[in-house]
């Protein structure tokens, strides 16, 4: 193991996050799968839904920063160098993008399935 071993990274992340590692991982997989499914079914990117999802995504980004501040017992006024601001940006960006994808997927799935129900109602 002369090089950085991904299994070491995984072991540390599992120790750090416990069950949350799998919960968040599952959420990420569901979010991405849902997003891809919605895109495949609708064959277009709904700009209105995307804007709404991005607005929710901003809240997700802020949430990621608040969570990070909570678990690290610190605040963002503690940033002391460029790497700190870069990491803060990445945390915000990660929260924003993840939440946006998830929100878009949920919105799309709701739209698709409610649309099907409507169609079923019309048939009967």
């Amino acid at each position, binding site marked *: *193991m*002369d*090089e*950085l*071993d991904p*299994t*070491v*990274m995984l*072991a*540390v*992340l*599992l*120790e*750090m996050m416990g069950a949350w590692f799998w919960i968040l991982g599952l959420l990420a997989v569901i979010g991405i799968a849902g997003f891809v499914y919605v895109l495949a079914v609708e064959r277009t990117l709904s700009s209105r839904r995307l804007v709404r999802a991005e607005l929710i995504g901003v809240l997700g980004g802020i949430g990621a920063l608040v969570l*990070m501040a909570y*678990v*690290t*017992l*610190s*605040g*963002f*006024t*503690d*940033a*002391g*160098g460029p*790497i*700190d601001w870069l*990491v*803060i940006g990445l945390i915000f960006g990660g929260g924003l993008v993840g939440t946006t994808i998830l929100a878009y997927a949920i919105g799309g799935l709701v739209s698709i399935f409610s649309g099907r129900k409507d169609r079923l109602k019309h048939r009967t």
Partner: protein
Amino acid sequence: MPNSTYMKFDRRRFLKLGAAGTALAVAPVVSGGEAAATVRTNARIVIAGAGAAGLSMAAQLSERLDGATITMIDSRVRHYYQPGFTLVAAGLKNAGYAVSRTADYVPRDVEWIEDSVAEFDPDGNKVITQGGQSVPYDFLVVAAGIDLDYDAIEGMEVDRIGQDGIGSVYHSPEMAEATYAAMSRFAEEGGVGLFHRPATEMKCAGAPLKYTFITDDVLRRRGNRARAELIYAAHDGVHFSVPIVSEKVRMLYQDRGIDTVFHHVLKQIDIGAKEATFDTPEGDATIDYDFINVVPPMRAAAAVRNSPLPWHTGPYAADGWVEVHRETMRHLRYPNVFAVGDIAGVPKGKTAASVKWQVPVAADHIAADLAGEESDSAFNGYTSCPLITRFGRAMLVEFDYHDNLMPSFPGIIAPLEELWVSWVMKTIALKPTYLAMLRGRA
């Protein structure tokens, strides 16, 4: 019996690998490549001590050796996450944060004798426990740790920690919590805060410096800094043994208004009068205090000190540190004996970060011996100290035997800058890495 004369070291290659490593949070284990394969053996291996080094070694050997009888001897059922003591003494975590059960980390195929080693008999290849049990071995790993010698400070009473302005972060998680209570009272009332370190080798030599910074920050956050004088009494002529780090700490202490006195070694404390007496080149010097963080002299565990294992000459002889080769961790007189962790008589490195790098090297040499092969694994003295300089910031200081800085993220995380990311590592990444290390997974 293994022969120590065959050992070869490719230091350049090792240093290169070390430089390519990542921070403690993700630092890779360095081992000897081919020797990492499982070795079939019926060897008897005894590990004396179940602290960070002992448990980590048990996990590594359990993984590497098939069929070996591995016995770990230690009477302590509570395991301390010692790097967490500072956070407890800072009031950020409670004592429970640093306490877990030794049993949670003992590998299934390792026998744990819940007793302490009373006698080491390296000539007879056996150890004898306090309960009188004789345990023979083919290989011995000494990981018996440190004795905190509070008795060496005249007038010091351990049960007064937390009262009368007495703090001592090192004693235990509970006393680290009590230290916060005493420091917190001091931060309300002001006065003189006195900090120091012993003249002996010690665990994490950055910890006394950190606690001075933390106390300064608590005073500032409560608006009481002007009411307090902070004094750091160094045992020698520097703030820290690594010159470049020492100079940085000097600048930061100047910036924070922390006074330093040099060549002061605490010898006596008058708890009632709140006076600390130091041994100095000019004779005894007394400093009045309102709060003091007592750091006791540290020595090798008594059973090791009284055995044939320590150095007979040199700087590690007086306090009984085990005479090992600084790169292989192999005993210089008993080739089937290794020492890892705090007990090892090597420069610097009484930290969990050093354990993380020492243990795979020693394990690799044991496995190679058993396989009839040679190992070129070597430990370069790497150690790491996330030096907290205030709440929310730390310097990720990493260095080797030769006082070289060994930044894990060169060009990304500057080792001598006060950074939030270094604090983040200390607060959320260090403990998971430590626990993964105990389980042999990091």
